[in-house]
Protein backbone atom coordinates (compact mmCIF):
# COMPACT_ATOMS: atom_id res chain seq x y z
CA UNK A 1 0.00 0.00 0.00
CA UNK A 2 1.18 3.50 -0.80
CA UNK A 3 1.08 6.26 1.75
CA UNK A 4 -2.13 7.80 3.05
CA UNK A 5 -2.72 11.24 1.58
CA UNK A 6 -5.28 14.03 1.25
CA UNK A 7 -6.26 15.81 -1.94
CA UNK A 8 -8.59 18.81 -2.02
CA UNK A 9 -10.06 19.38 -5.45
CA UNK A 10 -10.59 23.15 -5.54
CA UNK A 11 -12.79 22.81 -8.62
CA UNK A 12 -15.36 21.05 -6.46
CA UNK A 13 -15.11 22.61 -2.98
CA UNK A 14 -18.18 24.74 -2.30
CA UNK A 15 -17.01 26.01 1.10
CA UNK A 16 -19.85 24.31 2.96
CA UNK A 17 -17.62 23.48 5.95
CA UNK A 18 -19.15 20.02 6.15
CA UNK A 19 -15.65 18.54 6.59
CA UNK A 20 -14.95 20.89 9.51
CA UNK A 21 -18.23 20.02 11.20
CA UNK A 22 -17.85 16.28 10.61
CA UNK A 23 -14.35 16.32 12.10
CA UNK A 24 -15.37 18.27 15.19
CA UNK A 25 -18.35 16.01 15.77
CA UNK A 26 -16.57 12.70 15.16
CA UNK A 27 -13.66 13.45 17.45
CA UNK A 28 -15.46 15.69 19.94
CA UNK A 29 -12.85 18.39 19.36
CA UNK A 30 -13.07 21.13 22.03
CA UNK A 31 -14.01 24.76 21.50
CA UNK A 32 -11.25 26.82 19.97
CA UNK A 33 -9.63 23.90 18.20
CA UNK A 34 -10.25 23.23 14.53
CA UNK A 35 -8.32 20.32 13.16
CA UNK A 36 -9.64 21.17 9.70
CA UNK A 37 -10.82 24.43 8.19
CA UNK A 38 -11.86 25.78 4.83
CA UNK A 39 -9.74 28.53 3.30
CA UNK A 40 -10.83 30.80 0.45
CA UNK A 41 -8.21 31.75 -2.10
CA UNK A 42 -8.53 35.05 -3.97
CA UNK A 43 -11.66 35.95 -2.03
CA UNK A 44 -14.00 38.16 -4.00
CA UNK A 45 -11.93 37.96 -7.15
CA UNK A 46 -13.36 36.21 -10.22
CA UNK A 47 -12.14 32.65 -10.16
CA UNK A 48 -11.89 32.43 -6.37
CA UNK A 49 -11.44 28.94 -4.99
CA UNK A 50 -11.94 27.28 -1.64
CA UNK A 51 -9.91 24.45 -0.20
CA UNK A 52 -10.14 22.34 2.91
CA UNK A 53 -6.91 22.38 4.91
CA UNK A 54 -5.64 20.25 7.77
CA UNK A 55 -2.50 18.30 8.55
CA UNK A 56 -1.38 16.80 5.24
CA UNK A 57 0.76 14.09 6.88
CA UNK A 58 3.80 15.25 4.94
CA UNK A 59 6.34 12.84 3.54
CA UNK A 60 9.12 14.81 5.20
CA UNK A 61 7.18 16.44 8.01
CA UNK A 62 8.81 19.64 9.34
CA UNK A 63 6.93 19.31 12.63
CA UNK A 64 8.77 16.06 13.29
CA UNK A 65 12.08 17.73 12.55
CA UNK A 66 11.64 20.63 14.96
CA UNK A 67 9.93 18.91 17.90
CA UNK A 68 12.34 19.25 20.86
CA UNK A 69 10.84 16.29 22.73
CA UNK A 70 10.47 13.90 19.79
CA UNK A 71 6.75 13.38 20.31
CA UNK A 72 5.93 12.77 16.64
CA UNK A 73 6.02 9.44 14.85
CA UNK A 74 4.96 8.15 11.46
CA UNK A 75 2.94 4.99 11.02
CA UNK A 76 3.59 2.37 8.36
CA UNK A 77 0.73 3.92 6.39
CA UNK A 78 2.50 7.30 6.31
CA UNK A 79 0.24 9.00 8.84
CA UNK A 80 2.05 11.54 11.05
CA UNK A 81 0.84 11.22 14.64
CA UNK A 82 2.02 12.51 17.99
CA UNK A 83 2.09 11.42 21.60
CA UNK A 84 0.28 13.89 23.87
CA UNK A 85 1.92 12.36 26.92
CA UNK A 86 5.28 13.59 25.59
CA UNK A 87 4.20 16.92 24.02
CA UNK A 88 5.12 19.97 26.10
CA UNK A 89 3.03 22.44 24.10
CA UNK A 90 6.02 24.56 23.07
CA UNK A 91 4.50 25.46 19.69
CA UNK A 92 7.58 24.88 17.54
CA UNK A 93 5.57 22.57 15.28
CA UNK A 94 3.09 25.37 14.74
CA UNK A 95 5.84 27.63 13.40
CA UNK A 96 7.26 24.88 11.21
CA UNK A 97 4.02 23.60 9.67
CA UNK A 98 3.31 25.12 6.22
CA UNK A 99 -0.41 24.34 6.63
CA UNK A 100 -1.01 25.79 10.09
CA UNK A 101 -2.22 22.41 11.26
CA UNK A 102 -1.09 22.26 14.91
CA UNK A 103 -3.72 23.60 17.28
CA UNK A 104 -3.34 24.50 20.93
CA UNK A 105 -6.33 24.50 23.26
CA UNK A 106 -6.39 27.20 25.92
CA UNK A 107 -6.48 25.72 29.38
CA UNK A 108 -7.06 27.11 32.85
CA UNK A 109 -7.85 30.57 34.13
CA UNK A 110 -5.05 32.33 32.29
CA UNK A 111 -5.53 30.49 29.01
CA UNK A 112 -2.27 28.58 29.21
CA UNK A 113 -1.43 26.86 25.96
CA UNK A 114 -2.20 23.17 26.24
CA UNK A 115 -0.81 20.18 24.43
CA UNK A 116 -0.85 20.24 20.66
CA UNK A 117 -3.83 18.80 18.82
CA UNK A 118 -4.07 18.11 15.10
CA UNK A 119 -5.66 15.95 12.44
CA UNK A 120 -4.82 12.29 12.96
CA UNK A 121 -6.11 11.08 9.57
CA UNK A 122 -8.69 9.44 11.84
CA UNK A 123 -5.97 7.07 13.04
CA UNK A 124 -6.03 7.84 16.78
CA UNK A 125 -2.80 7.81 18.74
CA UNK A 126 -0.41 5.52 20.57
CA UNK A 127 -3.04 4.20 22.99
CA UNK A 128 -4.77 0.91 22.25
CA UNK A 129 -6.87 1.04 19.09
CA UNK A 130 -10.47 1.96 19.81
CA UNK A 131 -9.87 2.48 23.53
CA UNK A 132 -11.54 5.21 25.58
CA UNK A 133 -8.14 6.72 26.40
CA UNK A 134 -7.33 7.00 22.73
CA UNK A 135 -10.67 8.59 21.95
CA UNK A 136 -10.38 11.17 24.73
CA UNK A 137 -6.92 12.28 23.61
CA UNK A 138 -7.02 11.91 19.84
CA UNK A 139 -10.54 11.07 18.75
CA UNK A 140 -11.91 8.08 16.93
CA UNK A 141 -9.63 5.60 15.19
CA UNK A 142 -11.55 5.04 11.96
CA UNK A 143 -8.65 3.45 10.11
CA UNK A 144 -8.72 0.60 12.61
CA UNK A 145 -12.43 0.27 11.88
CA UNK A 146 -11.74 -0.19 8.17
CA UNK A 147 -12.93 3.32 7.32
CA UNK A 148 -11.39 6.43 5.80
CA UNK A 149 -11.21 9.91 7.40
CA UNK A 150 -14.68 11.23 8.13
CA UNK A 151 -14.01 14.65 6.56
CA UNK A 152 -13.47 13.06 3.15
CA UNK A 153 -16.25 10.52 3.50
CA UNK A 154 -18.73 13.23 4.50
CA UNK A 155 -17.72 15.66 1.73
CA UNK A 156 -20.88 16.27 -0.29
CA UNK A 157 -19.15 17.13 -3.54
CA UNK A 158 -16.23 14.74 -3.01
CA UNK A 159 -13.86 17.69 -3.26
CA UNK A 160 -11.85 16.33 -0.38
CA UNK A 161 -10.59 12.85 -1.03
CA UNK A 162 -8.44 10.76 1.29
CA UNK A 163 -6.83 7.37 1.23
CA UNK A 164 -4.06 5.47 -0.46
CA UNK A 165 -2.02 8.00 -2.46
CA UNK A 166 -2.11 5.96 -5.64
CA UNK A 167 -5.87 5.43 -5.49
CA UNK A 168 -6.82 9.05 -4.83
CA UNK A 169 -4.32 10.38 -7.39
CA UNK A 170 -5.98 8.07 -9.91
CA UNK A 171 -9.44 9.40 -8.96
CA UNK A 172 -8.27 12.98 -9.48
CA UNK A 173 -6.50 12.11 -12.73
CA UNK A 174 -9.75 10.67 -14.07
CA UNK A 175 -11.66 13.81 -13.07
CA UNK A 176 -9.13 16.10 -14.73
CA UNK A 177 -9.29 14.07 -17.94
CA UNK A 178 -13.09 14.21 -17.96
CA UNK A 179 -13.45 17.94 -17.26
CA UNK A 180 -10.26 19.06 -18.98
CA UNK A 181 -9.07 21.43 -16.24
CA UNK A 182 -8.23 21.76 -12.57
CA UNK A 183 -5.14 19.58 -12.38
CA UNK A 184 -3.47 21.86 -9.83
CA UNK A 185 -3.64 20.45 -6.33
CA UNK A 186 -2.95 23.01 -3.65
CA UNK A 187 -0.41 21.83 -1.08
CA UNK A 188 0.46 18.55 -2.78
CA UNK A 189 3.99 19.59 -3.72
CA UNK A 190 4.63 21.11 -0.30
CA UNK A 191 3.44 18.02 1.52
CA UNK A 192 4.51 15.14 -0.65
CA UNK A 193 7.19 16.48 -2.99
CA UNK A 194 7.25 18.31 -6.28
CA UNK A 195 5.30 15.71 -8.22
CA UNK A 196 1.73 16.86 -8.82
CA UNK A 197 -1.17 14.54 -8.15
CA UNK A 198 -2.55 13.03 -11.28
CA UNK A 199 0.83 12.71 -12.93
CA UNK A 200 2.57 9.37 -13.33
CA UNK A 201 5.33 8.66 -10.85
CA UNK A 202 8.90 8.48 -12.05
CA UNK A 203 10.07 4.90 -12.61
CA UNK A 204 11.12 3.25 -9.40
CA UNK A 205 9.69 5.98 -7.17
CA UNK A 206 7.04 4.99 -4.66
CA UNK A 207 4.42 7.65 -4.14
Amino acid sequence: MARMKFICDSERCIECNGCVTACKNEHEVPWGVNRRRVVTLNDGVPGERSISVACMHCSDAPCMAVCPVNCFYRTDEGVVLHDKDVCIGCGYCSYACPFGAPQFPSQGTFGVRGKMDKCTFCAGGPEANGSQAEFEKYGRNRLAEGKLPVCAEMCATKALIAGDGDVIADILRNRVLKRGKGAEVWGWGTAYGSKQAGQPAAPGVKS
Partner: protein
Amino acid sequence: MKLVWTILATALLLACGDKAQTLGTPAQDTSPVTGTGKAYTVGGWKQGDKASWEAQLKARAQYGQNDYSRVD
Protein backbone atom coordinates in the same frame (compact mmCIF):
# COMPACT_ATOMS: atom_id res chain seq x y z
CA MET B 1 29.23 22.64 63.53
CA LYS B 2 31.75 21.65 60.90
CA LEU B 3 29.63 18.66 60.02
CA VAL B 4 26.56 20.87 59.53
CA TRP B 5 28.48 23.15 57.19
CA THR B 6 29.76 20.18 55.25
CA ILE B 7 26.26 18.77 54.82
CA LEU B 8 24.92 22.21 53.85
CA ALA B 9 27.69 22.77 51.32
CA THR B 10 27.15 19.31 49.84
CA ALA B 11 23.42 19.96 49.54
CA LEU B 12 24.07 23.29 47.82
CA LEU B 13 26.51 21.73 45.38
CA LEU B 14 24.08 18.91 44.62
CA ALA B 15 21.41 21.49 43.82
CA CYS B 16 23.69 22.89 41.14
CA GLY B 17 23.87 19.50 39.41
CA ASP B 18 22.31 18.95 36.00
CA LYS B 19 20.27 15.95 35.07
CA ALA B 20 20.95 14.19 31.80
CA GLN B 21 18.55 15.37 29.08
CA THR B 22 18.09 12.66 26.53
CA LEU B 23 15.27 12.37 24.02
CA GLY B 24 12.88 9.52 24.54
CA THR B 25 12.18 7.04 21.82
CA PRO B 26 9.17 7.80 19.62
CA ALA B 27 5.88 6.29 20.70
CA GLN B 28 5.01 2.77 19.65
CA ASP B 29 1.60 2.55 18.07
CA THR B 30 -0.46 -0.47 17.22
CA SER B 31 -1.15 -0.87 13.53
CA PRO B 32 -4.75 -0.13 12.49
CA VAL B 33 -4.67 -3.49 10.72
CA THR B 34 -5.24 -5.13 14.10
CA GLY B 35 -8.66 -3.46 14.31
CA THR B 36 -10.47 -2.34 17.42
CA GLY B 37 -12.27 -5.53 18.34
CA LYS B 38 -15.47 -3.53 18.75
CA ALA B 39 -18.67 -2.71 16.96
CA TYR B 40 -18.62 0.12 14.39
CA THR B 41 -16.02 -1.83 12.47
CA VAL B 42 -16.92 -2.21 8.85
CA GLY B 43 -17.47 -5.73 7.60
CA GLY B 44 -15.74 -7.18 4.57
CA TRP B 45 -12.30 -7.52 6.09
CA LYS B 46 -10.69 -9.65 8.73
CA GLN B 47 -9.12 -7.85 11.68
CA GLY B 48 -5.41 -8.58 11.81
CA ASP B 49 -5.18 -9.45 8.12
CA LYS B 50 -3.16 -6.70 6.43
CA ALA B 51 -4.07 -7.69 2.88
CA SER B 52 -7.81 -7.65 3.56
CA TRP B 53 -7.54 -4.32 5.41
CA GLU B 54 -5.71 -2.73 2.49
CA ALA B 55 -8.22 -4.15 0.03
CA GLN B 56 -11.07 -2.80 2.16
CA LEU B 57 -9.63 0.73 2.26
CA LYS B 58 -8.89 0.74 -1.46
CA ALA B 59 -12.40 -0.45 -2.26
CA ARG B 60 -13.90 2.12 0.12
CA ALA B 61 -11.87 4.91 -1.47
CA GLN B 62 -13.21 3.92 -4.87
CA TYR B 63 -16.90 3.44 -4.17
CA GLY B 64 -17.08 6.28 -1.68
CA GLN B 65 -15.10 8.93 -3.52
CA ASN B 66 -14.90 8.09 -7.21
CA ASP B 67 -18.28 9.16 -8.55
CA TYR B 68 -17.14 8.58 -12.14
CA SER B 69 -17.16 4.87 -11.43
CA ARG B 70 -20.97 5.17 -11.22
CA VAL B 71 -21.31 7.11 -14.46
CA ASP B 72 -21.22 5.67 -17.97
